[in-house]
């Protein structure tokens, strides 16, 4: 946890400041939190390691979030699609969610998070899943069929799908 080996090199810190919306303090804090997710031996090579999705989801900020799976999937750059995140993916995620990110970036990622089937469009199925996530896990918290219909009717009005347009 302590020790200079687990500190971020200065130039890398500067680079991350340039490439993300995070401040220096926030990047260092992210580094600390990320290294806590790794075991002691892995901390040496923090920048190369990927943390499996199950561990990421233990973070308190994500644990309470109904969209945690989608978030991991969207920000993960792993080729196998298993949702594991490297440190840079983690920084990306924090950068998009930070206060200083522009609304274009936020809306772009929001669209991708809400697009449950990854087809580039938000159709009725996506919206249903979205509303169910919002109202809570478990069957008793869902809206009734008729309410869901009324809601989605209002939403799409007489359309059926939303595409990746200025969201």
């Amino acid at each position, binding site marked *: 946890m302590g020790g200079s080996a687990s500190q971020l090199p200065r130039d890398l810190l500067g*680079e*991350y400041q*340039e*490439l*993300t*919306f995070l*401040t220096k*303090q926030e990047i260092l804090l992210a580094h600390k939190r990320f290294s806590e997710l790794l075991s002691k031996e892995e901390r040496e090579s923090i920048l190369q390691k990927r943390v499996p999705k199950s561990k990421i989801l233990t973070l*308190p*900020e994500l644990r*309470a*979030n*109904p*969209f945690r799976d989608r978030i991991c999937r969207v*920000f993960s*750059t792993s080729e196998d699609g298993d949702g594991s995140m490297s440190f*840079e*993916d983690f*920084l*990306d995620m924090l*950068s998009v*969610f930070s206060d200083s990110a*522009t*609304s*274009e*970036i936020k809306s*772009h990622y929001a669209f*991708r998070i*809400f*697009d449950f089937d*990854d*087809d*580039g*469009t938000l*159709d009725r199925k996506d*919206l249903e899943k*979205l*509303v169910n996530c*919002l*109202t*809570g*896990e478990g069957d008793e*918290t869902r*809206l009734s069929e008729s*309410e869901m219909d*009324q*809601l989605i009717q*209002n*939403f799409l*009005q*007489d*359309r*059926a*799908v*939303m*595409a*990746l*347009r*200025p*969201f």
Partner: protein
Amino acid sequence: MDMVLSSEVFLPDADNTSPSVTFLQELPSYQSILRRRTSAGGTQDRRQNNHGFARPPAAAKRNFVERAGVKSEAVVRSIREYALNIPEKRKLRDIQEANVKYLSGWDQLKQTRNKSWKKFLDETKELSSYLELWRNDIHSIEGKFGTGIKSYFSFLRFLVLLNFIIFVLMFSFITLPSTISQYGVLNSSYVKVPPKDIEPQCTVYTISGTKGLVYFYTYIIDLLSGTGFLEMTSLFYGYYRIDMVHFSAIKYNLPLAYLLTTLVYLSLSLIWIVKRSVEGFKQSFVREEDPFQSYCNKIFAGWDFCITDPNASRLKHSSLKYELKTDLEEERLRQKKARRTTEEKLRIYCLRIFLNIFVLALLSGCFYSIYRATIYSQENISNVSSKMTFEGNLFVQYLPSIVITLANFIAPLFFSYIIKFEEYSPAFEIRLTLMRCVFVRLANIGVLLFSLGNRIVCANEKCKACGYNYELYPCWESRVGQEMYKLMIFDFIIIFAVAVFVDFPRKLLVTYCSCKPIQWCGLQKFQIPENVLEIVYGQTICWIGTFYSPLLPAIATIKYFIVFYIKKISLMHTCRPSKKSVRASSSNFFFLAVLLIGLILAFIPLGLSMTRIRSSKACGPFVNFNSSWDVVPRTIRGFPTALQKVLNGIASEAFAVPFFMVICLIMFYFIALAGAYKRVVDQLREQLVMESRDKQFLIRKLTEAQKRS
């Protein structure tokens, strides 16, 4: 968030979905949007070759980064505004840097300058965030209770800062010169010009109770009500009985400074509040317009990503469900309402009129009782107070404050009860109740001041000599200051007492006693509107009182500082988050709007007393003037003639009326412009819907044709 939907007729045939989507993604408009979407403020530099792209949601992963052409423009979009992950952003940055050498020397210079300027801005922002008061406290509140309640606390922080700045202003321009001249620091001296042409009886001013042996508790009463030994300190207006302060070479006109500082702090508050509310206004204005927009916002922006506590998240889920259900319910009600018969409408309107009359009756009852309480209190203060006991004395002093607090407590209960019978839509119900509560609170202060004013100014011979009631109120401004001081202290005592004697016992009862009625009551919810009204009420008192008591803002700062911690502790330990969540942006706007109403209402008594009522002849800086405002014309008369003419011209009707007309014209122009834009936006929206329908139709036809061939 501008929602533009493309439509696709959802064909039951599963085969048709994938080709249509592929067609959609091949459309040139889609491609250009992908390329253009990530340039922040895309309207800024259309000519530029944009390198931004979105990670294509389709399975095909094309690497747009390598498609980047040579940049011909010097302005580089900040890299972090591209929606790429970090390795791709690195590649993009390397390409950009490689392209730099193709630019001319001047462009390179501009680029490096822009970069270093941005870096500098970032660093200053980071540093300034450390200076922010209570940053960590507010963050933790946000995490546990959501952004609605957090906005209450940032509002409180704003008021602490505002009051502190007002205090610094008043102290440095009024109190400091007076005090240092009285002690001769820095070679300063003061001049007291004796009043001329004034009846001698107007200048008699003795402070009761400071001579001889007094009971010890008199000091406590004096501390709590600003009388006795406090009256002649720099806390109140009466202390500043100086006409001019001489600092070696400079002459400092204290009366002018007093008046101007008052005007400055009022305008500063106004400007700061308007500036803050403009940011919130833009968002909340767009939001409430359309039911479609509000659904969009609830669903896409409904989840509060700051929540970390699992209990809080469960509550957020249920509150979202509750919100969605109530919205749907409201819509059903609206449809039902549209189908109301004339009979029902008539019945409801009659009921509403009757209830409003009831409300007016209640308000008049409140106002009358405040009036009587003030009169009674003022009459008995003037009586020799040594005959009364400590409690009796204190009670008489604080009677108006007690009555006002009772009225502020009872009226909202009554309003929230009767609003149910008036059958408005839920959103309108909330707004109407709030407006009524705001009105009651602020009008109560107005009634107090009015009843005081009535006693100070009178029409009979008592006041003829000096223009005000000099027997009862030799220094009436100090007396008004004392009333405001008492109101503020009492307000603080009430907040503290409610937190300690109501909230904590309630929590203990609910935790340890399991009988039905108590469990049904439950823990209290943090009611944002009531709390906001409480602090706006306190702030209005501060604004009105600062003219009569220049050190009052310091007391207000300390009071709000302590109130922050009281509320925070009470929130964390005794409250449960409420089901009805309040949205942050609209809350911000609501808080500032109510504060603005308070400020404007504060202008009225100040304006009237500064211009209409004769300033006291026995104390204060305006002894030699007819009214407080009088110092300005007199100073202007000392200016060179040319300047005098200009200033007189500005103040005359010949200037004011055309100026007012020009302002009205400009305002009408902007209103018309806004209306025209709205119409254009609606038209364009309809057109887009039509276009997308056509597009889908054509794609469907194309797919069918493809299949057939």
